[in-house]
């Protein structure tokens, strides 16, 4: 993989973010390249979710520069829309639209953004529902599905926009243990297709299997940025060592 400016997916320079008095992100510098798969981990409140939510403008940063696919993210609606068009996001709570069927959930965005007809959008959506292996649930409401199925629908829904980068915000944290695997398998399959991904997760096996880089955050800062092998076997900071020992020893 060549790391050149042309295939820079995310470029954050000196980014700072506050929630009132709380300094949520501190001087974040981060570059992510096409095809890279990043796992972001760290204790709760360390700024992991805030970091990826800043990338598609769900949270506003107050200081520094964020570029996604070469577009500078600022208050301008056009810049935000241009970035969101190419960035898909999957949430911890799925956030499916409960009053719409699985299919309707999936076609809403492509119909509005890609100006597809309902038939074209449905065809597209069906191909992604097949990819996450739930085409037979297309006409059900989200509430009729299991948590794992709902999260796979959420992944399919995001893929329908044909994004170049996928953000995952703790996608398995609100799932029952026996459903985590089906969602992780879906994400691994996506990774194997070469999708650029940034994934906030505590699933360290997933990180070992698919990540190119593990980013460890603490108190709003990026403390480590390493290959999974180096991070797990040879963490550089005490904070990361402590975190790993707590997460692995239970």
């Amino acid at each position, binding site marked *: 993989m060549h790391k050149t400016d042309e295939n820079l997916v995310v470029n954050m320079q000196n980014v700072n973010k506050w929630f009132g008095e709380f300094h949520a992100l501190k001087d974040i510098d981060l570059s992510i390249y096409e095809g890279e798969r990043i796992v972001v981990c760290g204790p709760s409140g360390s700024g992991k979710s805030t970091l990826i939510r800043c990338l*598609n*403008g*769900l949270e506003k940063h107050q200081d520094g520069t964020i570029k996604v696919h070469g577009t500078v993210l600022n208050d301008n609606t056009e810049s935000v*829309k241009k970035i*969101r*068009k190419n*960035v*898909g*996001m999957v*949430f911890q*709570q799925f*956030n*499916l*639209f*409960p*009053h719409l069927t699985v299919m309707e959930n999936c076609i*809403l*965005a492509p119909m*509005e*953004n890609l100006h597809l007809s309902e038939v074209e959008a449905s065809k597209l959506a069906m191909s992604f529902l097949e990819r996450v292996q739930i085409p037979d649930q297309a006409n059900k409401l989200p509430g009729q599905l299991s948590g794992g199925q709902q999260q796979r629908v959420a992944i399919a*829904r*995001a893929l329908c*926009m044909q994004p170049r980068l996928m953000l995952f915000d703790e996608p398995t944290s609100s799932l029952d243990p026996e459903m985590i695997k089906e969602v992780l398998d879906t994400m691994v399959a996506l990774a194997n297709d070469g999708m650029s991904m940034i994934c906030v997760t505590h699933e360290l096996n997933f990180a070992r299997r698919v990540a190119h880089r593990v980013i460890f955050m603490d108190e709003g800062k990026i403390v480590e940025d390493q290959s999974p092998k180096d991070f797990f076997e040879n963490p550089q900071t005490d904070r990361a060592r402590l975190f790993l020992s707590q997460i692995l020893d239970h």
Partner: protein
Amino acid sequence: MSELLIDIFGKPHGIIIFQLVAATRFTIYLSLVAFGGGGVVAAMITFLTISPQPGLGKIAQTYIWFFQSIPLLMLLFLTGLGVPRLIGVDVNPWTAATISLVLFTSAYLAEVWRGAIAAVLPGQWEAGFALNISFVSTLKKVILPQAIRYGLAPTVGFMVQIIKGTSLAYIIGFSDLMLTGKRWANAPVSGSEPFIIFPIMAVIYFCICYPLAVVARKLEAEDLAKS
């Protein structure tokens, strides 16, 4: 109709009941106008409260607070008696009652609807935005269909308050069930004493309001069953 009532109830009760029922239609008209006009204004105010422009939200919130803090009776006095005297024009009771009730209704409905929209989980907005769906489309296709579920029962319930609220308009000379009844109660006619007239009026108000209250309760129960 009037003869039929006289046949059944005799005089003067047949005549009284006929006049009260006839006057009730103005109560209903005023309620409908208040609900329709108030609903339209409330929709605009609600939209302002959720608008991404913070300034507009403040204006809308101020409107809601202001008209929720003034008694309806005060609004009626102001629009029906105060302002006409100030500018030296006659304002007919219909106009004054309509304006007062629209202001009153819009403030309450806007608050109910704002609350219903706020009850939709923030993750729904975020999912819409993350999918690059515009603010207006997210509102229309994602948020409102869910908010209506939360807002429907209290809205129907509030219609009962409007209907009862219209009874205050008699004070500025609006000729409805209340004014007609009060005239009869004051009339020196045997058989139209207050203890006869007021219960009849109460029954009429009850007949209009009770079905709405039942509908509101049913909607609420359905909503609970769904969630």
